């Protein structure tokens, strides 16, 4: 249980179903491109799922607008000197959706469930090296760790750590038809592929979520529907059948100009898209070849072509809004676009060039127009003498495949356009500390540097340690950052809707919405 867990972007080229039935006046309809995987926060990792969990469940901590952890269900907490005991004091009077009080037993139930030996949470490792959860008194719970782990605090602010009410244990169908939490919205029903109907939780008291409304949401119901076709979502927005949705990318400039709909672009999404390579075998065991890829990739032009100004290039292995991100620092270490240099490097490394191209596989996951982006990168790489075969696959498949490539000693070179999203630089530990999330590059010196980022509690010291890690990864072109995707989380909002905003790490907040 050393490694950490991260969040990945939502489903791939998922096609969902639209909402078209008449709705009561006090409903908000939010249309998305895909559906959740489950209502059980221990069984999935997609952003689409997380967003819905954050409506139904509450978390011990929450984040402020900059992404830093703040109190929520836990009004305060203490850490022991050795960093191994965390004691949380819970707010009084919080009620679960079934009318039972939310107390330390529910927290213990949640933690124990995540660590259940028979069926552990798929995000078990993200919780950190927790050895026990102990109920001190009804409003006090103590988590004991086997080693210090500073990234646990930001984790407890994320919906991966949603607090489940222990009454779920007695219910049939938890995760499918039942989901008892203490969040602002209660589950009414879920029709997979179609819609999730949520009702407002009248007893809700906001302790720390990024909302101005201190109590229950203003609206009666929130309908989260799946509408895969962007043009359909736009049509629904225009007729008023939908209040909030991602618009078609190509129509955003026109919408912004006309003012017909308001456009909200999620900031601090924490998402990072990057090149990584099968480093144990040729040709990517050669630093020069990796650098050539980095130098052949013209990120600015490619993004402009595919996403317009809705995605921004990223220089760091951890994205904007995450602790330690520093564009100037990273730009000094990341190999920048320079096709001539790339050609020279390839020629030097193996005599490759446009006339004698180096053939490699490029793994890309479906959705988000990444297939189109990959085609642009493919053309750019071809110009310097790399023939990249694009292989499209679902993210789950790609995760397995990347690991498989890293464990295979032979075969043609493999590189992939990976995406991770996380709220803390601890993501780098998960990816690159041995054995590595994908069994990829590791080294004892990098391990030592990464270990420091986990235990240094002083922010300035920790920042220094994070920078050391980033410099190491960038100098060797191990993790070549490309961009921070924005467009999948552009929201078009009908003009009469007030109070909609998006918290860091793309959690939309509906507590303040009214119209």
């Amino acid at each position, binding site marked *: 249980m050393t490694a950490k867990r991260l969040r990945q972007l939502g489903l791939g080229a998922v096609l969902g179903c639209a909402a078209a039935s008449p709705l009561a006046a006090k409903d908000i309809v939010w249309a998305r491109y895909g559906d959740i995987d489950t209502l059980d926060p221990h069984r999935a990792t997609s952003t689409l799922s997380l967003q819905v969990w954050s409506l139904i469940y509450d978390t011990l901590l929450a984040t402020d607008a900059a992404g830093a952890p703040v109190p929520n269900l836990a009004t305060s907490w203490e850490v022991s000197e050795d960093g191994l005991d965390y004691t949380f004091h819970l707010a009084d009077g919080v009620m679960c959706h079934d009318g039972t009080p939310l107390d330390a037993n529910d927290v213990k139930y949640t933690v124990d469930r995540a660590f259940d030996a028979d069926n552990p949470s798929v995000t078990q490792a993200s919780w950190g090296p927790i050895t026990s959860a102990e109920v001190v008194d009804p409003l006090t719970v103590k988590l004991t760790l086997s080693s210090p782990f500073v990234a646990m605090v930001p984790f407890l602010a994320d919906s991966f750590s949603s607090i489940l009410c222990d009454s779920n244990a007695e219910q049939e169908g938890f995760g499918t038809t039942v989901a008892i939490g203490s969040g602002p919205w209660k589950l009414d029903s879920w029709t997979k592929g179609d819609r999730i109907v949520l009702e407002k939780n009248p007893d809700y008291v906001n302790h720390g979520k990024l909302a101005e409304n201190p109590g229950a949401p203003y609206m009666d119901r929130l309908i989260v529907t799946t509408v895969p076709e962007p043009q359909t979502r736009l049509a629904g927005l225009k007729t008023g059948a939908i209040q909030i949705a991602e618009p078609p990318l190509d129509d955003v400039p026109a919408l912004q100009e006309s003012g017909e709909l308001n456009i909200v672009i999620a900031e601090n999404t924490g998402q990072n898209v990057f090149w990584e390579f099968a480093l144990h075998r040729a040709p990517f065991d050669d630093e020069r070849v990796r650098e050539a890829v980095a130098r052949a990739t013209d990120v600015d032009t490619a993004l402009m072509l595919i996403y317009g100004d809705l995605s921004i290039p990223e220089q760091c292995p951890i994205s904007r809004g995450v602790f330690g991100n520093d564009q100037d620092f990273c730009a000094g270490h990341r190999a920048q676009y320079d096709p001539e240099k790339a050609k020279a490097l390839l020629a030097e490394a193996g005599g490759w060039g446009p006339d004698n191209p180096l053939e490699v596989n490029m793994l890309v996951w479906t959705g988000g127009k990444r297939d*189109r982006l990959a085609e642009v990168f493919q*053309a750019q790489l071809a110009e310097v003498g790399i023939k990249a075969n*694009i292989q499209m696959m679902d993210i789950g498949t790609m995760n397995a495949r990347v690991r498989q490539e890293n464990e295979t000693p032979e075969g043609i070179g493999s590189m992939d356009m990976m995406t991770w999203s996380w709220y803390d630089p601890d993501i780098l530990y998960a990816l690159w500390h041995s054995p590595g999330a994908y069994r990829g590059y590791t080294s004892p010196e990098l391990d030592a540097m990464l270990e420091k980022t986990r235990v240094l509690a002083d922010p300035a010291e920790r920042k220094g340690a994070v920078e050391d890690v980033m410099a190491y990864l960038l100098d060797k072109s191990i993790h070549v950052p490309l961009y921070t995707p924005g467009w999948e989380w552009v929201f078009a909002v009908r003009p009469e809707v007030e109070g909609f905003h998006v918290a860091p790490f793309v959690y939309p907040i509906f507590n303040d919405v009214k119209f």
Partner: protein
Amino acid sequence: MADIARTAPPETRRKARPLWLRILRNPGGAIGAALVLALVLSALSAPWLAPFDPTKMAAGRPLTAPGAAHLLGTDELGRDVLSRILFGARLTLQIGAIAVGISLVLGLVTGLSAAHFGGWPERILMRATDVLFSFTETLIALAFVAVLGPSLTNAMVAVGVAAVPFYARTAYATALGEVAKPYYEGAIAAGAGHMRLILRHLLPNVLPTMIVVATLGLSNAILAAAALGFLGLGAQPPQPEWGYMLSAGRDFMNRAPWLMLYPGLAIALTVFAFNILGDALREALDPRSEGR
């Protein structure tokens, strides 16, 4: 995917007039042959005919409408649509030929063996064919792609294998007539080699029918592979496969309708050409079916 009604052509008869003349005298046959010829020629000469490299980005401004510079416009990456369609013709013919080749070979082996050997091999082979038949081509092709993963090669194999039951049935039904003839039984009794009998007597007799089936089958295979490409389960970028182009173009339905218009038209014309050519071929081989 694209299932087309298939009517097995009745048994063939020889006539004095050469086959090609009989086909060309039929207006449908003439049009079909001309279209197929044009398709093959443009596929072969795509490197010279195409004004641009089909995968070259920014050959023109992205999403340029059809006009003098780009006859069929450009896509969202600035690639020339005409060039992509011309090169796509190569892929399409390749897909059709390989898929039909697979169906034809496996179908003939199964059908002719069943007819020749009779007895339990016949029962097993034809029962298996019946079962596969009721799985439907779509399901077989999808199952294949699900196992092998999406790629152009896998799509060709999937489409080819999925159609085998139909080819096997037709070959079997046609060959039965020959097997029933007295000389055939006599030859078996006289100890003639199995291979020899199948290759010398059965194959030539079923071939005309199977050529008609294969011509019509080409249109079916092309449609099915394009459907897989459309779903993202066939050709992978940047291959200018028509089905995939069509599916990528739908995002720009409002701003650039030509992106979904021309690849669709190309598929429809190709399939149409093989359909009418196949019909003409059938009529030429079997005058009784004229006008059916």
